[in-house]
Structures are given as structure tokens and as C-alpha cells.
């Protein structure tokens, strides 16, 4: 299973990473190399196996669904490249 150029363009868009057109083909080759190596997983019979979905073998703790912290607008915005009146600033999204 190899990744063609169109697939690379699609996943780069899904991941919101712009890739120059000249870099698409080399990237497709590189990613295909990795996916071809990963393909060996298909040899393993997993028909009766439950997926392991996390790193811990334990029940997670329950807690009350309650507000425990907040009111730190200044701290939250302190690292933002752009902010206005207590909000993050972004390019216009509505025409």
C-alpha cells in the first residue's frame, strides 16, 4: 500500500500543514516507505484480540462535573500572538 501524490495532498490538508507542490512527490515516497514497513502488521492474526486502547490497566477515577478553576483571562491570553478585549484574535472568518 503506497501513498500517491493525491493522498499526500489530502492528508496534508486534513493536518493543516501546507506543503509546496515540489515537495509532494518526495514526501509521498518517504511516507510510503514508512507505511510499507508498517504493512508487516497485517501478518499478525488479531481476529480474537481486543484492542488495547490505553497505557493503563485500571479504572479511571470519577469526579464531580464541577468548575474547579477559572477566571484567569490574562494568563490564558498572555501567550497569544494576538488578543482583543479578552478574546483571542484571528483573521476574519465571516465575509
Amino acid at each position: 500500500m503506497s501513498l500517491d501524490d493525491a493522498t499526500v495532498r489530502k492528508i496534508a490538508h486534513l493536518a493543516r500543514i501546507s506543503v509546496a507542490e515540489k515537495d509532494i512527490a518526495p514526501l509521498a515516497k518517504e511516507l510510503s516507505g514508512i507505511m510499507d514497513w508498517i504493512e508487516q502488521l497485517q501478518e499478525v492474526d488479531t481476529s480474537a484480540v481486543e484492542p488495547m486502547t490505553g497505557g493503563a490497566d485500571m479504572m479511571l477515577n470519577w469526579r464531580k462535573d464541577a468548575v474547579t478553576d477559572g477566571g484567569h483571562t490574562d494568563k490564558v491570553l498572555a501567550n497569544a500572538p494576538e488578543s482583543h478585549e479578552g478574546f483571542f484574535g484571528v483573521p476574519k472568518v465571516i465575509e
Partner: protein
Amino acid sequence: MTELTQLTLSEARDGLRKGDFSAVELTQAHIKSMETNRDLNVFITEVPGLAIERAKEADHNRSHGKAGALEGLPLGIKDLFCTEGILTTAASHILDGFTPPYESTVTANLKAAGAITLGKTNLDEFAMGSSNESSYYGAAHNPWKRKGDPRYLVPGGSSGGSAAAVAAHTCLGAIGTDTGGSIRQPASFCGVVGMKPTYGRCSRWGVVAFSSSLDQAGPMTRTVRDSAILLAVMAGHDAKDSTSADMPVPDFEAALSGDIKGLRIGLPCEYRPDGLNSDIAALWDKGVGWLKDAGAEVVDISLPHTKYALPTYYIVAPAEASANLARYDGVRFGLRIEGESLDDMYAKTRAAGFGAEVKRRILIGTYALSAGYYDAYYLKAQKVRQLIHQDFVSAFENVDAILTPTTPSSAFPIGENSDDPISMYLNDVFTVPASLAGIPGISIPAGLSSDGLPLGLQLLSKRWDEETLFRVAGVLEEAAGFSGLSIGGEG
């Protein structure tokens, strides 16, 4: 007075208790070492002023009978832990200028125990790498060199800066994180002790996330005792990380009894592939001999799915990374590259802010999670991960610990493995299986290669049994008698 940077962490702790020297003197000595070792590029950010201020407080606390477990001990912190008011970069361009308004739980625990932060250590970008070469701040260098070869070698990765900082005596110990070997592999390359605890032992809160079902913080030190001392402070339940274990933290230092009589140690045949480096095979055999001499019983075991661990990891970790790294969008922190639209800004910011390896992994992860491929890759990898986990569960029905090499090679020159991603991934062939299984592992410096570089042996135990791991590691360390680098000296 003994050169203060030559002390182990436990010796420095005891010296401070006895009043042989002050925390300020101890900290100044390490700041000087940090300055003279700048050619190694092990620190991204140094905070000597803060460190001295904290050392004065530590001396004050001690004189008022309020000394914590690590009072006055200077440490290096991998620059993946958020530290309040101190630049935190994850060695990525995309986090330019990010100064966290909060402290990670692990570093907060260290702080509360009186430890002093000297600075933030270098790493592979977002902890993705095995050589520390993918850092936006430049490669960190291994303080060890091959006999008769002046070239700089990699310190391993991703916690390469932490490993090299400890090996070069710029700090008494450091903390790292291990997702697939990122503590144990650099520890092996730099001749220090690197410990990855059981998944859930340390809180992940405030650690820049890479792969959330695998990431785990751990200590990097010059001795096993130092490792036990640091882990006891780092570990513990944290309500802010739902996967942190709500169970008591044992006294790990007390586990160092030196007695392993009757313990059963497993040797997995899959870790001795054809063509295993002969220095490493010989060291492994020596390790077996040391444990036998100490009264342990050594048995051959099999972990049949070992060969599938790396390809499993390279689906699971990138898939989780692609989700975790979605937050770097140029809106809330770090780098922003303006675009014609919001989407264009995201794509340009992420293109400029992430390095090649990080992009590769995000794209692989995005592919593995995308419609039509989820079952074939991500679900498949999760199932194989279960089989790898079961291999260990079965093995630990019969043995108390497992002994293997840590790495398939010693440290290599900068640039040597950078052309082919898969050859770089193979560095973690012996460390990744334990990461997938969530079990603890420790790398002990055990000898030198024929060209004079450190080599580590890895011990693994079942979940939550770090005490057995430390106990066996202590015996192995004593038998190996490995001597690290002397002050500012050659290997």
C-alpha cells in the same frame, strides 16, 4: 573539599544534611559546570539567577528545620515540562516565546521537595527522535567520544540533553520523558541511569503531550540510588491526570537491599537477533553472569510479538501525536504566520513551525486515522499492542524481571542516521515493547564498547513493581562497576 559536581545526588543530599557545604555553593559549582560545558548544547534555557535565589531559600529552609527531601539539589529539566514563568519550547519553533502560566505536576512535586531548577534541557522536537538532532535549537552533543576520534556523537534521544547534562556533571540529576525509549536509550548512549516508570506512576499534567497512552516521565541520574530518590518525589496521584494511578508511592530507596537471591530473571530470545552487535551481546552475557553470581536464577523466555513492536509504535504514537499536536494553530500561543484566511494561517503556521520529523509523524498519524484506513492501521495496531502486552503478562507469571540490552548500538556520529527515518526508528527496537505494554524499565550503564563508548543493559518488570526493578538494578550496577566521566574530562 571534594569537587561538588563530582558528588552523586545522594551524596550531595547527605552532605547538605551534615552541613559540609551549602546549597548556594552546590548550585554555584553546577552553574559553573553548565557554563564550561556549553559546547555540548545540552541546555536550551539556563536560569542561573533563579537557581541561586532558590538555593538561598533552600539554605534558609534547612537552617529553620524545614528541609524537603530534595532541598537544595540542582537538577536539569527536559524542556518538555511546563515550568511557570520559564520559557518552554519542546525544542520546536512553533512554541516560540511560550512562557507557561502554570507548572507541570512533576516539576511542582520536585519544587515542593526543595529541588532547584538549573535550566531546561535540549531534546528532539516534541520528543520525536532518537538522537536529539531534530531540535530546533540544534543538536545536543554527547560528552563521550570514540577513542581516537574527535567527532561529536549524538547523546541519543529524545531526552538527549538531560542524559548528556547528567553525564557531564552539569547537574546532579535530570528528568526526562519516555514514549518509546526516550529516557532509556539516551541514558545508555551517555553512560547514565535512565528510568521509565510504569505508565500512570507520574502525572502527565503539564508535560507537552506527544503520545498520551505512552508518555511517561522519569529520572536520569548517575546512580540507581539517585534514580530511586528522584522517582519517589516525582511520582504520585494527581487528580489533573485521569490516568495517573491512585495508589501509594513505595519507598524506592528502601528497595535497594542488594539481595536478589532466588529472583527469577528472564532472557527473551527475540532480543538476540542474528547480527546483534558483538560488544552488546558480550555485555549482555556478562550481565547474566553478574546476576547469577548474586544468586538469581536465569531462565530463557520468549516474547513472540517483539518484532511487531516498532511498526505498532509507529502507528499508535503518530496517531496520538497528530491529535495532540492539532493544538498548535497559531492562535493561542507560539508562532503565527499570517495567511489569507484562518485555514491558510493554520497551514502556513504549522508548515513553518514544525520540523521534518514532526511533520512526517503528524502526516502518518493523520493517514492512519483517516476514513477508510482506521481499521486497517490504527485498530490493527491497537490489537497487536494487546498481544505485545500479553507477551509480557505471560512472561511475568514465570519471572520477576527481564534483562536485555538497552540499544542495538552505541552512540553514533551526528548526521549518520539522518537520511533514513526507519534506520533511526530501529534505535528503539529494545525499548519500545515495554512502552507499549506500559511496564517499567531501567537502563544501567554496564560497560564500554570496543571503541570506548558506554553501553547500557535494560531491566524490565511487571507493572507497579519498580521496587524489584531498583533492587536488581542496584545489584547490576554494583557488579558492573561502571565509572562515568570524570569532571570535564575525557571518557
